[in-house]
Structure formats: C-alpha cells, structure tokens
C-alpha cells in the first residue's frame, strides 16, 4: 500500500549505427522503495550494454530519494563508460532534474526518437 510499485521493462532497440540501445522503461513511482527496480535492474544488464535509454514517460511520482537512485545509476554508468540518454519527463521534472544538475550527466530529450538519435 505504501507506493505504486516501480515497474521497469527492459528491451533492446537497434541503434542508428549498429550498436544496440538497451531501453529501461519505468512506470509507477520512483522513490526510496525503488532501489531494486532502478539499481537492481541497471546492475543486471549484460556488461556489453554500452548505450542505455531511460524512458520516464509513465512515471507518476518521483521524489528526491528516487532521484538519488537515478544519480547512483548515472554514477555507475559513468564509471563503466556507458552512455545514457533520457526522455519522457514532465516539464516540472525536467526543471527539477536541471536544478539538481543531472542534466550534466544525461540529456533530457523531448521524445524517444530524439533520445535515440543522440547516441553517437
């Protein structure tokens, strides 16, 4: 009853120039209860995943503890040399991510096509 549990679907898209894109589509809430859904899912990706796309378009509620999990994921991805693009945040949460400085570590794109095109 605490939260609308975080759900995450992992899939793969062909990348624009060969290298596939691993997509994490989040839905529900991202809060302190989402550690497994965010970090657990990230850590279970195959080591070859070099391009990761985060889809936030079905996230209903996000708080600072949830954002902390996203930061931890970005930190681990940075160390692993992975590139992460994001899309689907509401204008409000785009603002919040920008305030916190996350936009220095992942770009927030207006839609999936723009996000995919940004992998180089």
């Amino acid at each position, binding site marked *: 009853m605490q939260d609308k549990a975080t759900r995450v679907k992992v899939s793969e898209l062909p990348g624009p120039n060969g290298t596939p894109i691993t997509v994490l589509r989040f839905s529900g809430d991202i809060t302190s209860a989402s550690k497994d859904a965010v970090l657990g899912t990230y850590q279970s990706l195959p080591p070859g995943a070099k391009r990761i796309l985060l889809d936030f378009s079905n996230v209903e509620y996000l708080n*600072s503890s949830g954002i*902390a999990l996203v*930061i931890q994921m970005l930190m681990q991805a940075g160390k692993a040399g992975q590139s992460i693009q994001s899309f689907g945040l509401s204008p*409000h949460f785009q603002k919040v991510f920008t305030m*916190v*400085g996350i936009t220095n570590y992942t770009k927030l794109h207006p839609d999936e096509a723009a996000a995919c095109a940004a992998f180089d």
Partner: protein
Amino acid sequence: MEANNSSTVELRLPSRLGYEKVAMNTAASVARLMGFSEDRIEDLKTAVAEACINSMEHGHKLDESLKVEVILSITDNSLEVKVCDEGPGVQGKVPVPNLELKMSGEESPRGMGMFLIKSLVDEAEWISSGPNGSCARLVIHLHKPEEE
C-alpha cells in the same frame, strides 16, 4: 492544533512513506481553489512532499503512530504551508548538495530535499521546536513579488 482561523486547512497524516502524496494532493487542491497555475502547483506538490518525507524520516524516524501535521494558511495573495513534526528539527547548517561530489562518491546521493524545497517555493524556512513542533514553513505567492 492551530487557531480556528477560517482560512486555514489542517491535515494530519501517519508517518508512513507514501502518505506524503495525500499532503501533496490536499495542498494542490487548496492552491487550485486559490487560482494558482498548474506549474506553480507542481512546484508546491514537490516541495510539500519533500517536507513531509523529512518529517516522517528525520522527525519521526518512521514511527507511524506519530502524526505529521500540515497547516495550510490562505490569504488573498499567498499560500503558506507548515509541515510539522514532533522531532527536534533541523540541526545546524545543511550543506548545499554538490552533484559532482555525489557522482564521485564523496557525498551521499541523498540530501536534495531541502535544496529542492528552497528552489521551488518563494519563501522557505525551518523552525525547530516551535509551538507546533518542528516545522518547515513554505510560502508561494499568487503574484510573484517584483524583485524576483
């Protein structure tokens, strides 16, 4: 409880994570009645949720039997929201979060709630052990002051 002012709405919640959403939506309803724009209401919702989570986690150590009290005071030009708990309040100065340090692992990835609250509302202050307990006091103005 606050004085029976006719322009006050009061809410009391158990200290259970998830219930901050009730406060968020109650505050949003009041702000909507007052005529705030939807983007200001989004700012308020995030600020109120963060303040409630802090009262639950830090003020009440998630003891569900302790109630977080949310007092919404409506005036012609502004909405004040006090989020109060029975704990000792914020102790000392809280550092501004530094994302570079978080990314390098030198700082906890947490610690962004108060920063977000301050960034999202027009006025924010923290009162320790006042008449309503320890409170985060947030204010949003219907017409933003000129100097902003």
